[in-house]
Structure formats: C-alpha cells, structure tokens
C-alpha cells in the first residue's frame, strides 16, 4: 500500500496560539528582569571606595562611659550597615584579620593570648561599636590600638568579621571557609553555635581582662 505522506494544514489558529504563548513567556521574562533590576537598584552594591567625608564620619563612635556598647555614627545607618551585611566587606575583614596578625593573639577565633570570639563571652559586649572601638583604641591588658595601623573603614570591616566569627546562627553573608587548614567550621556555618553544641571544643577563657 502506498500513498503520499501528508496531513492537513494547520496554519491559522495553531500558529497564533503558539505566537501568543511565546510572547507570554518572553513577556514574563522581561517583567521578571525589570523587577529584578529595580530591586537591584535599591540594593546595596559593593562599595570599593569610601568617600573621605564618609570615612571621617565613621570615626564618630559614641561609647558608653564604661567603654561597653554605645551607638554607631549616623552615617553607618545611612550606608545601610554594610560592614555587617555585605559579603564583600566581611570577606575583606577576614583578609585584614590575617594581614594584621589578629591570629597571633586570638587564634582562629578560639583565642590564645587574647580572648576567644567563639565562647559567647564578649568582654565589652557584642555590638559593632564596642568591637570597632576595641580595635581602634585598644583595650587594657594587651589589646593594642590599631588606630595608626588601619583606616577607619578597614576597622569597621574587621569588626564586622570579628562579630561574624562569634555568630550563633548561620549567616548568608558571612565568609565561607578559607583555603587553609581547617580548625573550626567556617563563619557562615555559625562556628560558635556548633562548637557550643559540641561542648568539647577547647574554648579557652581569657586569663586576663576586666570582668564586665
């Protein structure tokens, strides 16, 4: 048996329906992109350069008289708290931590000659202002001032990172593990909480320092 192989024509309705579908998909895509772009505009971008007036304003930490806690400068909120929220700044903080030799006293966060950041025991409170002030101005019993070693925006970056080491909940923006030997879980996996849960981590209490 033999006949030509062909079927009926389907040009009209099917074609326009397909076109409609494709248009709908393309339209959805464009709308999604536009929405994302709008959100992206509102979002905090990576800031590589801090304007000198802004960094001058970042100097304006106001600490309580006892040196514990206080309020950050207004400009910190105006910037959108980048030093706690932006992955890039936190990562830079991590590099500063090794470049400026923090590990020589604080180890990988477990402490040593200096206090640990992992034990949930903040001598001057866990606020950014305290940490930044500790780095900038130093503290009694051995913490040197880094005022003349780092610029203020670097101090804020480092403070953000130090805070992330002691975080008790996993954080999206915190740095991941380094390409080094691993001594504890990475910052984004909440090392403090994990070590705390395990209970066996050799968390060393500082031998010195004022009691809060």
């Amino acid at each position, binding site marked *: 048996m033999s006949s030509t192989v062909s079927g009926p024509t389907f040009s009209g309705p099917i074609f326009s329906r397909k076109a409609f579908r494709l248009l709908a998909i393309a339209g959805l895509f464009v709308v999604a*992109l536009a929405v994302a772009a709008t959100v992206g505009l509102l979002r905090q971008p990576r800031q590589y350069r801090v304007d000198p007036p802004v960094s001058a304003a970042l100097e304006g930490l106001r600490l309580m008289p006892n040196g514990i806690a206080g309020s950050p400068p207004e400009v910190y909120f105006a910037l959108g708290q980048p030093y706690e929220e932006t992955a890039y700044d936190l990562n830079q903080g991590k590099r500063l931590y090794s470049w400026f030799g923090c590990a020589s006293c604080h180890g990988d966060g477990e402490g040593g000659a200096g206090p640990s950041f992992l034990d949930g025991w903040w001598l001057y409170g866990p606020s950014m202002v305290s940490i930044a002030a500790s780095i900038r101005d130093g503290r009694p019993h051995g913490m040197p001032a880094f005022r003349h070693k780092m610029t203020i925006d670097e101090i804020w970056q480092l403070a953000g990172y130090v805070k992330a080491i002691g975080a008790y909940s996993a954080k999206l923006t915190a740095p991941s*593990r380094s390409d080094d030997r691993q001594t504890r879980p990475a910052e984004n996996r909440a090392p403090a909480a994990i070590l705390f849960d395990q209970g066996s981590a050799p968390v060393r209490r500082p031998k010195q320092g004022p009691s809060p």
Partner: protein
Amino acid sequence: MTTERRSSAATDVDLDDAELDRQLDRTWAGRTSFWGAIAAVDHKVIARRYIVTAFVFLILGGMLALAMRIQLAQPEARFINADRYNQIFTMHGSNMMFLFAVPVMEAMAVYLVPLMVGTRNIAFPRLNAFSYWVFLAGGILLWISFALDTAPDVGWFAYVPLSGPEYGSGKRADVWAQMITFTELSALAVAVEIVVTVLKQRAPGMSLDRIPLLVWSMLVMAFVVIMAMPAIMFESSTLIMDRLVGTQFYNPAEGGDVLLWQHLFWFFGHPEVYIIFLPAVGMVSTILPTFVQRPIFGYLPVVMALIATGVLAFGLWVHHMFVIGLPRLAESFFTASSMAIAIPAGVQIFCWLATLWAGRPIFKTPLLFVIGFIITFVIGGLTGVMVASVPFDAQVHDTYFVVAHFHYVLIGGAVFPLIAGIYYWFPKMTGRMMSERLGQWSFWLIFVGFNLTFFPMHILGLQGMPRRIYTYQPEMPWGGLNLFISLSAVILFSGFLVFFIDVARSWSAGRPAGQNPWNASTLEWAMNSPPPPYNFRRIPVVDARDPLWCGSDELPVASGLRTDRRELLISSVVEALPEARESSPRDSVWPFWAAIATSIMLIWSIFSPWAIVWGSIPIAITLIGWFWPKGIAEDES
C-alpha cells in the same frame, strides 16, 4: 486530551486520508488553553519554545558583547567599572555557551530528529517538556542575578580559588554553579531522548547507513553530552559544597587541588565545543546537498569523521591548560591529539568541497551562510592547529588571539550553519518562507562585520593584549585596533538585527512555503508545513539514503498503528526492522510542576544545604504525580 476509544479496530489500516487525519489529530493535538500549553509534550512545540528562548538569550548576550566593545573602544574608559565588566564577560560566556549554543543545537535536534527519522514524537516527551522548563528557570536565575548585581564575576570557567570560598565573596559564584546544574540537567535529558529516538524509533528500513547526516551528528553530539556533562555537574556541585558546607575538594591545604577543577572543567569544556560544533556540521552536510541538488559526496567518511570527532573530543582537554606547568610528555601527547582533530575536520571540509564541485550551486541564503561557514571555519580550524602547539600557545594563551580563534570556531563554525539552518527549516517550522532579499543583506552584514570584528583580534593577541581585561592603558599600542573592532562590531550587530527583523516579518507575513520548497531529500519535507501534531499520517518506509529524491512522487508507508491512542513504531537498532508498537505519553502538567520543584530546590541550595533535604519532598510529590498510573493504555506499555 482526547477521549479514549476502546475499539480494537481503531488502527490506520482501512481509513481514507481525511478520516485518518481527523482521528490522528484528535489523538495527538494538545489543548489550546493556557494549561494545555503548559502541559504540551509535542516535540515541535517544545523545540520551538527552546529555539525562541535560546535566541532571546542570544540577543541578551549580544547586548553584553556590545557593552564590552563600547568599554574597550578606548583606553582607560570608564563606561563600565571593573566589577560590572567582570560580571559582563562572565555572563556573556556563560550565557552564550550554556543558555544559547548548547540549548539551541539540542532544540534543533528535538525539532528535526523525530521528523527526519520518521516518527511521531520524541522518546520521553514529558522529560523533554521538563528539560525545557528547567532550562528556562536556569536562564532566568542567571539573568535575574545579573539585574540584582550578584551575577557571577569569575569567568565562565570559574577557576578556583578565585571562585572558591575564600576569594569569591557573596553568592555570585554559587549562582554560576547552580545555573550550570540547571542547564546541564536539561541538556542531559535531551541527550538521552535523542539517543533513544535515533536508535529505536527510526522508520522501517532506515538502517544505520541511511540515517540523514544531521541525525548522525545529533546522535554523536548526544553521546558526547552524556559523557561530558556529568563532569561539570560534579564540579558545580562540589564547588557549591566547598563554598557552603565546607568540603575541601579544591583546598590544597587540606589535600584538595586547584588543578582538579581545571581538569574536570576542560574534560567537559572541550567536548562542549564539539557539542556545539557537531550539530552545526550536521546542518551543513544536510543543507549543502539540497542547494547543489546532489547527494553528499562521501557519506561514510563524513559519518566516520563525526564519530572520530566525538571520540577525539575527550582526548584533548589539556590543551586549555598548556601553561599550568605540565610534564613535557603530557604536553606532547595533547599537542599531537589536538592536532589530530584537524583530520576529521579536514575530511568533512573536503567532502563538502567535493559536493559543491560536483553539483550545481543555487545561491540562496542558506547556501551563502554555508559558504561563509567554510571560509571562516577553516580560519578557526587553522588557528586551532596553531594553539594546539604548546610553544605557540605559551605566547597566545589567554590573549585576544584565543578570543579570535574561538569566535571563529563558534560563530563561524556554529552560528553561521545555525542561521543557515534557520533559513532552511523556517519554512518547515512556520509554513512560511523567509525573505531572500533580507537574507542576503543579513548574510553580507554578518559575514563582513564578523571578519572585521574578530580578525584583528588575532593581531591584538600577538601584540600582547590579554583577555578578560576591562581596560588597558593608553601607552599600550592597542587603542587603534580596539576602536576599529568596536566599530566593526556595529556592522555585525546590524546584520543580526536584519536577521531578526526578517524572522519577525516572515513569521507573520512570509510567503507560504508548501511541503518542500527547496526540493530537499529528507523525510521532514514529506509533510505539510508546519507539520501536523502527529508528524506523519502513515509511518514512511525508507529504502534509500535520500528518500525524497528517489524519483517517485509517493513514499511507501507502513500501517497498523492505532489512531485512538498515541502510538509509535519501535524498530531495531541497526536495520530498523519494525519490532513493536509502543505508546507515547499524553500531555501532562506534571513535568512543569516537577521543574518548578527542582528549580526551588536548586536555587534554595545556594543559600542553605538543607534545601537538598526539604526541597526533595516537593520534587518527590511532583514525580509521583508525573508517574501516577491512570489505568490507560499509555501507562501500561
């Protein structure tokens, strides 16, 4: 969906053509509602979506290229900053490779392979629908991340440690890794479908030596996909694990290795080039004979060359790593193997030249693009021979010379044939011809613009201009050529613009095409344009390599398939002897929901490893829905 007719007589044996068409249409056509469109599993519908989406990504990627050319037109320009530029070149590469080139080639396979082998639908049509939705989600993920300023900025190759946990801050590299997982998942799914369709669903009589060359090339491509893609899926998963849960695959301090990344990447990345290139040469081998009205010269050598290319593709990945400090023996081996790939490429080129010589060329747009392909691809192939040499590569590796080389291979070697293919099969897909006048314009603009844009890059590379730089200093002697390239890029873009205008115009107002406007020889031209949902009224019987050039106006056909349910003919692998009737799945929305669930899990896993656990539950639910037995014939098979 059609109502079931449980009549034992519902086969195509004793029906006249009109009645048969009516019954088949009721069985095979999808619903026209919104959910009907979502549920469609017809390979032509899915493939058309794939092709259109891929071309949308081509346009977006082209915009990125234009932005880069504006930035590079003059030294130390500040049009785009370094951060954004790094995102843009990463997006351009990833988008063009993963969202345009591979999907569009596979989509052409999804459209054409079932028609060319004479069957009614692709194998695993629901998987096919699933793969499209997953691909779309991956593309949207990448582009939305770009709009959100969190696009990957580590290059399309994402070398660790730059993309690793320590130096790739934020979620940028994770987005890249999961976009890879999306697109590779869809590519693998399509590859499996193609292999099964080609090996088991060929029309009776289409033995291995009668398969059209395009189908051969798609088969080899599908095998290459199946071999190569798992390497990069492993890689993207390990990267995201290194970044998120603290594994140490790429950390030298803990026994990992940064070069492991490069080996895995190029073990996929080099075959990737052939995944794009093999379908393109298949198109050339199919289009060329039509426009000289003569069968291809050297069918067997061309098939052997395709297979050899597919095998050799896995033996030369290291030539992307010639400057990492390899042992000399390894360098020599991979130089020799990289050079050797020139032989199968040469075989095909000589066979095409012989076909051209022996036939009578008809200079229509598809042939023009094929000729443009031969001219530019030979340049790309020869520069490929150059960079295969270790010492030569030591100077040009990661320079604009390499940029020129692979654009000659990928645009000259794959996009030219693809556009030829679009001009060639557009009448089949839409029922309308594209404009010959605009086609000639677009060819000359693209051809001239392409060569003016990319040829000078060879010189720039030898003059020492590295790749992936967002700017260069005024004292470097590269300014003039870069400005020239940027201006030429405008010509290239206008060529593509003309092409897209032609597509848009012809789609709605083109001249009706008829069954076989080019007088071609393969089975897809044996039906109306566009093809009906069931492709063939009766399954053809093939007794020659060029079934439509056999002299008689009518094809012999086989009969006996049921009309009241979707049925295919299964044939043997080598001889294509009919073996069984197999039912083909009906439309279903479950692939769509499964793709949504998969997308949620993959995107969630950028942020939390627990996504793998909790995200698998919705996937399981959608898969249960997908495979739930409904007691109909299609399930029983």
